[in-house]
Structure formats: C-alpha cells, structure tokens
C-alpha cells in the first residue's frame, strides 16, 4: 500500500486492498503468459480438490432426499432453534470482535509497553490450541467451579464465550499488518490541518483498515458458526436452549442420517456465504463514503 491509499475522500476503484470478493481484474482480455497460466491452473486444481469438490459433495448429498427431506431436516424445531442460536451468537460475536480486535491490533501496533511480545504471541493461542482443550479450560474457568466466580456453564452465554475465544485472533491478525504498514504522514497531515484525533481516526485510519476488518469479520463469523469442540463441554447441549448446529449435525451423523446432516451443513454454508457477501458489500460502501 502506498500513501495513495490514504486519500479517502475520492478513492479510485482500483486501490482497494484486502480480500475484496469481487475485485476487478486489472486489464480485461489480456492473454495469460505460460507461467501465469500454469499458476492459475495449479491454484484452481488445489482449490477444487480441497474446497470446491467437498462443498459440492455436501450440497449434492443434501439434495439427495429431495426438497421435502431437506426442508424437514432444517425445520425440525430443535434444529431450527439450534441454527437460530448459532447464527445470532456468531453475528454478535463478530460485532464484538470488530471492535475489540481492532482495539487489540491498535494497541499491539501503536503502543510500546512491556510484555507486548508476550501478548503478541498469546493472541494466536486460540488458533493453536485443540478446541477440546480450549473447552476444558473454559469449563474450569467459567464453569460451576469458576475461580473467578463467573459461571456460564449450560447457559446460552457459554456459546457466546466459546465463540469469542476461538474467533479472537481473526480481526487482530487481519488488521495488524495493515495498521503497521499504514503511513503516519497522512495522519500527521490531517492533525496539522486541525483534525481532532477522533476525526483523524474516522476519516484517515478507519477507511484504510475497513477492508481488513471486514475480512477478519467474515472469517470470524464463518469460524463461529462451525464451532464444536470448545463449547461442547461448557454448553451442555440442551435442546432449544444451548444446543448449537454442529451438535445437531453430529447427532444426524450418529443416527446414520447423512442427508439431514448435509442439509443442515448446506444451510450453514448458505448463511455464511450471505454474511460474507454482506460484509464485503458493507465495507465497500463504507470505504467509498470515507
């Protein structure tokens, strides 16, 4: 990113950094060179083997029982309630992460304090820890025997807490590199022109960070809806109260009802897709407005 990226008043369409879903190709109609053709081929093959084909398999399986079986699977009150809980909680967690993740990234990049290196390292722990271990830790810290006096076990708040834990690094890690690359001159210029610190943040820093925040938010949501290990011990899996979608999927598999499991998974995929697209559209709007 150059300092050009920091002229937020009238951004051109081409400067958008980050993970724009619908990013424009630089030049239309240009022929691929051999090297870039090979690169594209490898990329597509890799992506297909790992992502595209499994995804299609899920959707094909989901459709095997026909529309009525699909509809039955996802509208069972217990399942519908699990989907509601999972999606709502993931949305709230994403909003919290956007605020807290940006704050943590800001502190890590802009503030010098003792222990920064340790904090920097600890941020990644939720990535590295096997989720079932995370679940055990959360149960001992925020369960009935909490040394902190906080007990969220077997209540919907436990789902919220577990989602927060596993999704914490996403926004931090997407925002941090962008923030540290950010040219301070633009901020200083704004300040010298009389902008308050808040205005500088809102008009100069935030627009540059928005794509990164959006990318982190999308990852954080997608990770949240699929979480299982870290909450399964703490949430108690109570039907219609604390049971999440992944537990319902597991139950369907345990009962050899693969079609129902795939149907619920397909719904989760669709919801994640909608949210990721919505986040992308939103960040475009915000960036354009500055």
């Amino acid at each position, binding site marked *: 990113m150059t300092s050009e990226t920091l002229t937020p008043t009238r951004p051109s369409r081409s400067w958008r950094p980050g993970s724009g879903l619908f990013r424009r190709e630089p030049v239309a109609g240009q022929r691929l060179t051999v090297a870039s053709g090979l690169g594209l081929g490898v990329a597509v093959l890799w992506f297909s083997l790992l992502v595209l084909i499994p995804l299609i398999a899920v959707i094909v399986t989901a459709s095997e029982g026909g529309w009525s079986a699909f509809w039955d699977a996802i509208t*069972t*009150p*217990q399942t519908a*309630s699990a989907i509601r809980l999972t999606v709502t909680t993931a949305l709230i967690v994403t909003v919290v992460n956007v605020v807290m993740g940006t704050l943590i990234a800001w502190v890590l990049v802009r503030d010098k304090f003792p222990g920064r290196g340790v904090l*920097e*390292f600890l*941020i*990644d722990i939720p*990535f*590295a820890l*096997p989720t079932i271990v995370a679940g*055990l830790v959360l*149960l*001992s810290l925020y*369960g*009935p*025997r909490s040394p902190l006096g906080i007990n969220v*076990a*077997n209540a919907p708040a436990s789902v919220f807490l577990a989602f927060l834990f596993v999704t914490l690094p996403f926004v931090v890690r997407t925002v941090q590199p962008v923030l540290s690359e950010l040219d301070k001159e633009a901020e200083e210029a704004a300040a010298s022109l009389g902008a308050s610190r808040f205005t500088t943040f809102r008009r100069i820093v935030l627009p540059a960070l928005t794509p990164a925040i959006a990318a982190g938010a999308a990852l954080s949501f997608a990770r949240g809806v699929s979480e299982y290990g870290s909450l*399964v*011990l703490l949430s*108690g*899996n*109570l*039907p*219609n*109260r604390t*049971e999440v979608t992944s*537990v319902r999927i*597991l*139950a*369907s*598999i*345990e*009962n*050899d*009802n693969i079609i*129902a499991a795939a149907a619920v998974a397909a719904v989760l995929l669709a919801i994640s897709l909608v949210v990721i697209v919505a986040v992308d559209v939103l960040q475009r709007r915000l960036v354009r407005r500055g």
Partner: protein
Amino acid sequence: MRFRSTAVAALAVAASLALTACSKPTSTVNADITPDGPPVTLNLVGYAVPEAAHTAVAAEWAKTSAGVNVTFKTSYGASGDQSRAVVNGLAADIVHFSVESDVTRLVDAGLVAPTWKDNPTKGILSSSVVVIGVRKGNPKNIQGWDDLVKPGIGIVTANPASSGAARWNALAAWGQVIANGGTEEQAYEFVSKLYNNAVALPGSGRDTTTAFLGGAGDVFLTYENEAILANQSGEDIDWIYPDTTLRIENPAAVTVNAPPKAQAYLDFALSPAGQRAFAQKGFRPVVSGVDITGITGVKDPSNPFPEIKKLLTVDDDFGGWAALTKKFFDSKTGIIVQIIAATGKAQ
C-alpha cells in the same frame, strides 16, 4: 513473523502427537516362547474406553505361543465414528464397539459375517451396568431412580442423539419403570421428568464425567466401569447401584477378511485370563471363572461387582436393538428423541 512459525511448529507437534496416539503398533517380543506361526499384524479398531484393557490383554496374549508373534495396530475413538470409519475403509481385523448397532452397520456393509453373534457370549466382549454417579458422600442422599426426578436435582447424562452409548442410560430409566409394573405412560412421564432435570447433555460418556467433575449437576448417569475408572484415577466421585438397572453389553467381532489370528485373539480376550484384564479396568466378566480379586477403584474390593436385584437386558426387556432403535431413537418418531426435543420448550 516469528510467532507464526512458533504456532505452526506447535500445531505440527500436536498433530504428530495425535497421529502417533491413534496408531501405535505394540509388539512384545519374548524370546523364551516358540511362536506357532509366522509373524502377523492385527488391526484392532475399538471405542475409546477399553483401550487400556486391550493393551493388557495383548500383553498377556504375547506370553503364549499363539500371541507371541503378533503385532497390533490399534485405533480407538468414539464408537459410532470408528464403525463408520471401518465401513469407509479403515483396516480392521477385530472390532470392539459400545453398542450392537455399530457392528450391525458392518454386517450391512458385508464386512462382518451375519453369524457374528453365534458364540457363548452372543458376541459380547465386555459388560457393565448403568449406575447413578453422585458427589463424594452423596450430599443429596440419592438412593435410586425416584430421587432423580425430584425438583432441584441437576442431572448430567450423555445426549442419546449424539452418543450411541448414552442410549443405555435412557433405556435404563425407561425400563426400570416398566420392570416394576409401570405402564408406558408412566415410563414416559418419568423419563420426561428426568430429562427436564438435566442440566447438561454432553456428547459422550466421557464428556459426561468431565462435565460432572467440572461441577455441573448433582448426579450423573454413567456406567459402572466409567465410575470405577474415574475412581482409579483419583477423582472425587461416588456412585450408587439402583435396585433395577440395565446390563450394558459391548460387542466385538472379527471381520470377514481377517486372518485366523484375529479370532484367536478374540477367543483369548473372552477367556478367564482375558476377562481378568477387562475386570481390572472395571468391566464385569462375561464368562464364569474369572479371578476378580484385587480390583482397585471399586466400592467394595471383596465384592467388586455387586449383584443387581433386577438386572434388565436389551434382549429380554426391549426385544433387541433393531426393535428398540426404531421405537425409542428414530430421529422423528422415537420416544426418547421426542422427550428430549420437548424439554427445552417447557421452560
């Protein structure tokens, strides 16, 4: 970035640990014993709980001429997952699952002969009973099933929807009403009350113990062997034997393409010596003549497996797994499934 590579390294270590944990060939070479044949490798696929028992049985077997030249490749995990893995190609010569339906799945796939139950124990390798786990000293004074449905008693029991093994608990609760002269309506009411008192429905039997030890609930429904194991590990729990409860039967079988040694291992595991190893891990012997002295972690070492006044079995009291699965656990019309689906709404 340094922290990234550290995290990656940590993950790699964790992953390799996990991999070695799920497949460790065990080989005991004993030079004094003449093997009765060429070296054989057996794939043993089982549910997680009896892993320690199998390790002990294999070590005992290695002291005989039949077992000395055998190497084991083992894989342990959740029963249903293991069964599905075998259907999907996981190499298995001997399987040991927590419920019969997991073997039936292999029979349906043509991997286990339909005659697998034609032996003196009807295909059962290990056995236990459903018990009621309580906190040390039994502060809520739980004496039997009826105490569980009193207001204010918090129950932790595995979720029958996601845990095949948890079905034993639900069946025990239902069956004890019927066995003592109750009607189906009364059984329905009792089981409804029981699940309304549930404060957590963890995904598996082990998760149930973990949640209870973590402080959830006043009682947990569990298996005698799980309670004994927790006690052996020094956990602060106690348990009571209800007057009426259900016999838990864990089946084992050899697959159709297994080498003859697989059946030999299973026969050894079913011998008094093999069953002794299971008994030491808290399982009730399935054959007679097993030495059950000196078992740790039990309530009364002189009588480690007390006789249950009225012991129900799946075959005698529920008409076998095929019938009961449809009646109780069908994902739409199953009685237990409906009861559990209704619990959250009443509140």
